[in-house]
């Protein structure tokens, strides 16, 4: 099994690497002192197991997991037992190791990983979503159905009981909710990045810390939606 280690603490990475060296089936491919570098690596390489510290400055282990669409098996490594319950909310997390990690406990964790692979030979490929969805969306304005080309929509903004649909050419105000229109949009093109905003992901010009520029629209990114946005980016 190929694995990577993510921990901002050098001594912690060294300890996990040493523990891995005791398991013949485990091959440590790389180690990272921050989650962002690991995301870039995972965009290019498939691995079987991640040993992941939860508490890292900036981008936590939980933020990191949320960025992974088809995450490999994850073993959390931390001293904060308070995080244990939250960690098990994610299906990819197979175990939770409290530091300092003993070899005996580490071996049990590896057994758990092997068992999960035995039960599920391979994670299913992501379901192809929205395959039946067309390229147009009809919106109802003053009893007229107006056709919008999906790839021309830039931003959709919630405005109370209405939404503003901004396209490359015009704006439309529609009496509906962001939640309802989101269900009609293909995920490969659109992404909700804030409670009040859905964006056409392909129209992004640039991204700053907390905002995205699409045409002339500066759209805020909420903290909870940021990991999904990061996951979608083809980071160099």
């Amino acid at each position, binding site marked *: 099994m190929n694995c990577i280690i993510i921990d901002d603490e050098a001594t912690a990475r060294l300890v996990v690497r040493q523990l891995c060296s005791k398991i013949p089936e485990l091959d440590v491919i790389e180690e990272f002192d921050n989650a962002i570098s690991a995301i870039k690596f995972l965009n290019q390489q498939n691995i079987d197991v991640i040993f992941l510290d939860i508490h890292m400055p900036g981008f936590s282990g939980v933020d990191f997991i949320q960025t992974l669409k088809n995450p490999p098996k994850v073993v959390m490594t931390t*001293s904060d037992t308070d995080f244990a319950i939250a960690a098990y909310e994610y299906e990819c997390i197979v175990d939770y190791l409290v*530091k300092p990690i003993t070899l005996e406990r580490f071996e049990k964790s590896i057994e758990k990983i092997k068992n999960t692979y035995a039960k599920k030979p391979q994670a299913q490929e992501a379901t192809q979503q929205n395959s039946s969805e067309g390229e147009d969306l009809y919106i109802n304005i003053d009893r007229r159905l107006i056709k919008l080309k999906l790839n021309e929509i830039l931003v959709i903004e919630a405005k109370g009981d209405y939404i503003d649909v901004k396209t490359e050419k015009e704006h439309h105000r529609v009496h509906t909710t962001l939640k309802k229109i989101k269900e009609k949009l293909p995920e490969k093109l659109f992404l909700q990045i804030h409670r009040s905003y859905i964006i056409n992901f392909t129209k992004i010009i640039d991204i700053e810390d907390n905002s995205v520029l699409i045409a002339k629209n500066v759209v805020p990114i909420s903290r909870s939606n940021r990991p999904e946005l990061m996951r979608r980016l083809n980071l160099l």
Partner: protein
Amino acid sequence: MIEQPNLNYVDELAGDDIAFRNQFLDIIKNEFPLEKEEYYGHVKNTRVKETAEIVHKLKHKFNILGMENSYKLAVAYEMELLDGKHDSQSKFVEVLDTIEKYIKTI
């Protein structure tokens, strides 16, 4: 009385692997003084969040050095800092001094 640090955990993990042991010692000898300085810098400038972050980082070293009680003290201190208190500060500093002396002997 502050408990004394030890390398029992590291030695157990190392077994005959001298390279691992040396690598661990190199890291701790290099990192600890820097992190201690960082801690004092944050305290001096009353950067509470940053102080809590470095306490969090330092407590892992207490853990690996077999200082269970000191680790618990650091956990409490980290929480205190986030609550705007620092009751455990002097004891925490004693732990830092104890480790500093110890790593000069290894």
